[in-house]
């Protein structure tokens, strides 16, 4: 009888999962995004890969789950994907190198963590002036801090549309979440 194969060490699983990138932002890995949280051993001994979803309706999440499963299947590891809601995903989990990669890709990285609170919605976006509560969002192209928000919502759930008043380029801003 053959001995049971030794379980794949978690480090190997991590190494394989590190190759997975965000389907919408291919320069950042799922780990850097803070979506891949943990590789652990479940109560029944089966390896679990824990992911935390981003926006509730983000269509990339099912793609991400499928990608993780494909990698695990490729390793031949019996493992399951566990979706964990709490603590809620936040852009604060994004590492500094990941932020720099975002910027180099043309997307302004997220600034402060929390948007306006209910008691702090006195600042209103007018056509040109910047709302005082909005963090300064530097242009990812020229670095100027003279930028203005075009629209709160952009091409994906996680982004807003901005424009640089110095170099006049429009750009995506990854909203703090």
């Amino acid at each position, binding site marked *: 009888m053959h001995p049971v194969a030794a379980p794949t060490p978690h480090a190997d699983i991590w190494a394989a999962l590190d190759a997975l990138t965000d389907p919408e932002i291919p320069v950042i890995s799922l780990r850097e995004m803070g979506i891949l949280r943990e590789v652990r051993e479940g109560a029944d001994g089966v390896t679990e890969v824990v992911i935390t979803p981003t926006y509730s*309706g983000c269509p990339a999440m099912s793609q991400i789950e499928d990608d993780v499963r494909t990698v695990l299947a490729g390793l031949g590891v019996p493992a399951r994907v566990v979706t964990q809601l709490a*603590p809620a995903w936040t852009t604060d989990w994004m590492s500094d190198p990941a932020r720099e990669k975002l910027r180099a890709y043309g997307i302004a990285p997220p600034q402060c963590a929390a948007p306006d609170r209910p008691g702090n919605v006195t600042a209103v976006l007018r056509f040109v002036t910047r709302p005082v509560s909005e963090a300064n969002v530097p242009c990812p192209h020229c670095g100027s801090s003279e930028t203005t928000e075009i629209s709160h*919502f952009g*091409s994906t759930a996680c982004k807003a549309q901005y424009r640089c008043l110095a170099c006049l380029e429009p750009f995506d801003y990854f909203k703090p979440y």
Partner: protein
Amino acid sequence: MSVSTPVACAPVTYLLHLADNALILGQRNAEWCGHGPIIEEDLSMANNALDLIGQARLLYQYAAQRIGNGATEDSLAYFRDVPDFRNYTLLELPHSAPLAATARGDRDYATTIVRNFLYSALMVLLWERLSTSTDEQLAAIAARSLKEVQYHLRHSRDWLVRFGDGTDESQARAQAALDHMLPYTEEFWTDSAAEREAVATGVGVEVATLRADWDMLVANTLAVATLQRPAASNGYVSQGKQGVHSEHLGFVLAEMQSLARAHPGASW
């Protein structure tokens, strides 16, 4: 997806009330997809609807797990009928001035914005409180939803101010939308059996305790927007969250559910 059953559990009807709110408003707002007044707002409504439908899915998945018996998020969304839905009546109304039965009107963006503002202002307060609910699964969903609805509130509030403090035309339409929709918010403050049960079991929020903050948020915004709050009336209080709906919900469901009912179990 594996979800452990928490110790304290919200009543299923309470979860469905929250889920139905998100789904029905998400479905309504998605009607703008491809028809937005400007492309930025087309994208905004698509994103808004995506967030709401995503919130609804999490709540339906949790409710289905609690119901058991083969219930799924799809069976709850597509195979329940009008009296089973527990959303506020406000959220099922068309994007237009008051209409009866099958009458059709042009979609009016001021109506969309006013409704999103009135609802988001409530949900920012409600999700924040529910994020510390003793039902851990509900609290987790609330914490995520809160982040999204804060953006919805900011968006709708900004546009309401632009409309109100804008041209004569935008002012008049925003005021008309407010006069039409505000009376439906009375339903927020009358509690349903599901809400009473959720409060009694310690997982829910007594809605009346949110009213002062909501009123202040609305008053502050209307003041900046130079809009008048319509005088309180003692008229009929809508009862959508108790399953008594306007004639409009049936049309929303007919469109939303027809594909799933024509091809049960279909996947792609």
